[in-house]
């Protein structure tokens, strides 16, 4: 291999997964109308800036960041839940020590945000913000309150299904992901443009947590399990071609 650093190849590129994600132009979600590029995206090769990314550590986390029920003097109202899962890449590799950030509405469906003024009370004991790092195996775990559904003005009688916002970094700029976790059996999916914007129905289901009775904390909290898959590497000529599926 050459010792000249300018001629060394970049590490393998990441697999492109545009077909999995919602389109930027989705008329059902009215606010996309003026906020989507019309020229079409230009292909960016995965060079050094794209295959690297911020590896943020413990300094981003403070005490109680992963337990949203203990961030105030009193306990928040609502159904206490554990939300846990594993972050992996598309090759099945766990993504260890990566920052996971969440934010959500309270049990009644109201966010602690100046822009959220619908007539549902704020909870003085709930901020709705959490952070954690995944462990060696890519696992994360939050304790929180099950968020409520809430109305919005996108269409007539529009309601957002209950959801928790998730933000993930992975290990490369290409893997950055912001998404939402939903709850199983929500009757509001049918009219939700966020949900319906995902072209493939199977892909939508990947945003739904699984009720996890086995990990319920007896006499304390229900549990939901939600695994997250970030982009994997593209195939290279050096890769073992064993078909494991």
């Amino acid at each position, binding site marked *: 291999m050459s010792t000249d650093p300018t*001629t060394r190849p970049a590490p393998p590129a990441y697999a492109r997964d545009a077909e999995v994600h919602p389109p930027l132009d989705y008329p059902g979600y009215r606010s996309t109308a003026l906020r989507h590029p019309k020229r079409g995206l230009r292909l960016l090769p995965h060079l050094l800036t794209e295959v690297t990314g911020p590896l943020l550590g413990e300094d981003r986390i403070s005490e109680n960041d992963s337990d949203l029920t203990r961030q105030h003097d009193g306990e928040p109202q609502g159904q206490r839940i554990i939300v846990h899962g594993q972050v992996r890449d598309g090759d099945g590799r766990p993504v260890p020590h990566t920052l996971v950030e969440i934010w959500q509405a309270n049990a009644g469906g109201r966010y602690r945000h100046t822009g959220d003024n619908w007539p549902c009370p704020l909870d003085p004991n709930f901020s709705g913000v959490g952070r954690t790092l995944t462990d060696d195996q890519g696992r994360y775990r939050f304790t929180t309150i099950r968020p409520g559904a809430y109305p919005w003005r996108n269409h007539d009688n529009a309601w957002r299904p209950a959801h928790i916002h998730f933000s993930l970094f992975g290990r490369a700029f290409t893997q950055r992901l912001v998404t939402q976790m939903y709850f199983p059996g929500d009757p509001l999916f049918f009219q939700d443009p966020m949900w319906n914007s995902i072209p493939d129905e199977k892909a939508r289901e990947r945003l739904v947590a699984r009720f996890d009775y086995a990990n319920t904390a007896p006499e304390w909290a229900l549990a939901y399990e939600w695994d997250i898959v970030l*982009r994997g590497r593209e195939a290279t000529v050096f890769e073992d071609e064993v078909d494991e599926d």
Partner: protein
Amino acid sequence: MARYATTPSQTVGPYLHIGLPWPDGPFAVAEGTPEGVWIRGVLYDGAGAPVPDGLIETWQADPEGRFDHPDDPRGAVARPGFRAFGRCPTDANGEYGIFTLKPGPVPGPGGTLQAPHIDVSVFARGMLHRTVTRVYFPEEAAANAADPVLSSVPEPERATLVARPAEDGYRFDIRLQGEDETVFFDV
């Protein structure tokens, strides 16, 4: 080859401000660093209105073109006080600002050299997925002309990727749509 289907993206929504901003987010390099520059700009929608509920994130090499990351085949290089990552929500006027160090050139494919650049992610209410763009620097005309990514963009649109000089650094406005629409990349 990737075998597991990835988790789809969803919008950050209108309430991103409670969850994503960090007090030190805009400081990709420590506040007060003498060589630091501000990259400021406004995020505009297709009607030319500022977007007050967006989030800008930046990722870049250090002034020597190095990354503190194990996947850089040249090795990871840490630089004290330099996070290389910036995050800033847009304010009521659609403005953001990132305080950072100007990056150095970075190796490109086939022995080419990429001009100094910063990768940018744009998130906002009304965007179901992030968009990605790049900031290039106005005083790097020769390097910009040889940059494999920038030179692949048709000439009239190339200017949308080049920051303008400003008193304390650079100005980089981002237009999501319209006549001067910023060039965005499929990453």
